[in-house]
């Protein structure tokens, strides 16, 4: 591994920037994501910063089942992110569709549209679980130098 790659990897692992997108969630998971960024849980101590635009983000945190309306927007947001990029499904409905599976306007979990790197279950996924999930994702990238897209 070249020195440059090492530096890039190191910096990437120390400052993963996230983008949060609600794909049809009930808001429960969204407020838990924000709660995990605020003082009690403070995800920022891992260098995680919430960003406003896909072009700045490394990790896309999705919450909720994918509704038909949001599907193509989600793909577009994913396309705008720079490589390497990772998708994390937060909450039971974004993992599998959850209570909303079978609704006529719902496709299912995030994995029905995008490749997902980590699943965080729970309805809603508690801030502790979100922190655990993000840290595990970072760990797995560490073990896998080059951090290829899955």
């Amino acid at each position, binding site marked *: 591994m070249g020195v440059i790659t090492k530096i890039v990897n190191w910096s990437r692992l120390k400052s993963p920037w996230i983008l949060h997108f609600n794909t*049809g969630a009930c808001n429960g998971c969204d*407020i838990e994501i*924000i*709660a995990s960024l605020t003082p009690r849980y403070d995800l920022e101590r891992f260098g995680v910063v919430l960003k406003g635009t896909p072009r700045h983000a490394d990790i896309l945190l999705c919450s909720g089942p994918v509704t038909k309306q*949001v599907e193509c927007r989600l793909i577009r947001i994913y*396309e705008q992110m720079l490589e390497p990029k990772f998708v994390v499904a937060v909450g039971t409905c974004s993992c599998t569709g959850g*209570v*909303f599976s079978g609704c006529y306007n719902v496709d299912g979990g995030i994995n029905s549209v*995008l490749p997902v790197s980590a699943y965080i279950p729970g309805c809603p996924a508690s801030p502790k679980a979100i922190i655990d999930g993000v840290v595990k994702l970072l760990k797995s990238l560490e073990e896998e130098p080059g951090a290829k897209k899955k």
Partner: protein
Amino acid sequence: MHDPGEVKIPFGPQHPALKEPESFLISLRGEKITSTSIKLGYNHRGIEKACEERTYIQDLYLIERICGICSHSHSTCFAQAVEEIAGLEVPARARYIRTLIAELERIHSHLLWLGVAGHEIGFDTLLMYTWRDREVVMDILAMLTGNRVNYGINTIGGVRRDISPEQKEEVLKAMDILEERTKYYIELATQEVTLAKRLSGVGILSNEDAKRLGAVGPVARASGIERDVRRDDPYAAYAQLDFKVITSNECDVYGRTLVRLGELMESYSIVRQAIQKIPDGVISVKAPRKVPAGEVVSRYEAPRGEDLHYVSANGTDKPERVKVRAPTLANIQSVSKMLENRYLADMPIVVAAIDPCFSCTDRLIAVNDPERKTKNTVAWEAIRLKGIEWYKRQGIDFTPLNKKLKSLI
């Protein structure tokens, strides 16, 4: 007709200032907004239809997940409707526990709002402060119900968990802490000049406009309309409790902030009264699996305003029709009015000030025209194709992209 001085800006569905997917098309003339059109529906999941396919008790949990912030509001509203059709008498203790959870939910929701409002005006310290304090009430909710959000405490005919004397102590302790903090926020809101300057005169909704556009909740109360379902049409245990309806005549975002802060103080007092007055007894009565035919409209004062559920039963174990009118749908009409001739920079805070919840709002209504006698039913696939065509005409083609992604999975 195209006006050369006018610029149209699409805003959303993904935008840093928006927490949920919705989109606005704003027409600007210079820095001023000339018109806004709001497009909803990104969050439409089809819950009302899904309710018809599930049993009442399953529906209760589905309805709870309409919105993760006011989940108790929706589930109580629905349970009340079903109980009324089935003729169930909810035990007094259960009514008090419902009231208790409802007020705790209002506290968490209003604290959350205060933080978000602070964030929208660039006052992130306030966001961090209020969300830190909000954890106190989240802990209490987790202790009483077992979950931080989507409490699942309601069941048809009562509640599922009792409250113990130790828990009562904990709740009272938390109320003291929060009251202290809220006093500080009130002081901040009334004395901090920058905050008052930024918020007053922004997003004006006059009393007449609020009435005409059917505003509800804190938005209506901040325009001087004294309307609160808890007092006007008491449900749960509100008839036995003593509280004030907070109003303000400021008619702007500042007024809405003051109303919500005042409501926080009222909520602390309601929680204390409920803890003190809670009677002994059972917490639920047995509900029949099948609910007799009938229809009911149930009202509930959610943190964002009046929530309305219509349930129609047909004698089976599944409802015939469920209709939800969430408070944001009533308030969203007034946003265009508030934004008229205002600056673009005011937009995030004006939208945030109605405390919108689009997960609640995204329902579908089919309007039939009796004159035309024909029903316009379009298959989903046809709409999709039409959408693809429309985007192609705009020069955006998703087909190769879609194919590429499908191959990746």
